[in-house]
């Protein structure tokens, strides 16, 4: 049940609190990717918080694409608050995706990167450790606001 230690959790009361600016600021501050982990659709305690978050994530994706930054660096995932294995799976999945994309161009200053979203990376069996070892030298830290 270990999840990659490079995933930094930012607690918020509901993903409905996720603002486009939070995601952009995380990228500005040097993370390589950021995802919102919300409740399953239809299960939001505040009815549509996770639906709103999904739309805002989509908006940020469109901004990143226009800027020449891969929109796959932001994502919205849904999971039950009681589903630990799914939480771990997503953390591994997203870490693997970011690892495949490499360090954010915002950090390296090397110009635009391809903006086609990569197909979902299969979670690796060794999971967290592999992600940890490869993310750190690149200085990469996916951040994660969690509901």
């Amino acid at each position: 049940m270990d999840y990659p230690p490079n995933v930094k959790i930012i607690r918020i009361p509901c993903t409905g609190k996720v603002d486009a600016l939070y995601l952009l600021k995380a990228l500005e501050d040097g993370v390589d990717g950021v995802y919102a982990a919300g409740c399953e659709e239809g299960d939001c305690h505040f009815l549509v918080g996770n639906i709103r978050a999904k739309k805002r994530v989509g908006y940020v994706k469109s901004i990143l694409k226009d800027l020449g930054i891969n929109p796959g660096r932001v994502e919205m995932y849904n999971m039950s608050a009681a589903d630990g294995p799914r939480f771990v799976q997503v953390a591994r999945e997203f870490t693997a995706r970011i690892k495949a994309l490499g360090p954010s161009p915002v950090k390296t200053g090397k110009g635009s990167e391809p903006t086609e979203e990569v197909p979902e990376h299969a979670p690796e069996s060794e999971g967290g450790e592999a992600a940890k070892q490869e993310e750190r030298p690149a200085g990469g830290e996916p951040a994660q606001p969690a509901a």
Partner: protein
Amino acid sequence: MIIGHRKPLEEILQMVEPFDKIALIGCKGCVAVCAAGGEKEVGILASALRLARKKDGREIEIKEVTLERQCDPEYIEEIEGFVHDYQAVLSIACGVGVQYMAERYKEIPALPGLNTDFMGGSEEQGVWVEKCQGCGNCVLHLTGGICPITRCSKSLLNGPCGGSSGGMCEINPEIACGWQLIVDRLESLGLLEKVYEQIMPYKDWTTSRDGGPRKIVREDMRE
């Protein structure tokens, strides 16, 4: 309110390309309500511009400010204290605000971050529609409160054209025929025969844009 939307980021980046220090000025008026140029949009655009620049290894300093309005000289004056430290002003007010910036701070380029679209209102959350063209001579009392100048694609004054089909306009099947709306409304008010049968004379468009830039002077309010 005046409805606008952000220019494509590529165009904005091109405009600010020569500068490394800009003031990004929002407006708390109409464009804040239509989520195009308010405080939140200032934050998002500033962040996007910084990301774009960092990505290219060239940083940009952005002063983020949102004024009460940008269509009044007194509010434009509020940035006097710091604006001269910046190479350009990127205004995300409507076109009026950008021009006020350019007029007041003549030595600093004023750049538009928005495309100003129309006078309108909210149809639902996230949807804005055009309702008025500011023709300068309102006829809403004759048309059931529905503007034929704006809502009819041809701005016809005496009933629909042949392109009205099933209540929709020929230019776009998603646009309602303005005159169908007017007739339905007059009918429901019981005014169809009384009002619709009256022929409207041709319109004097000099009160609209045809008379050049317009001006209203209220001598009782002038100082």
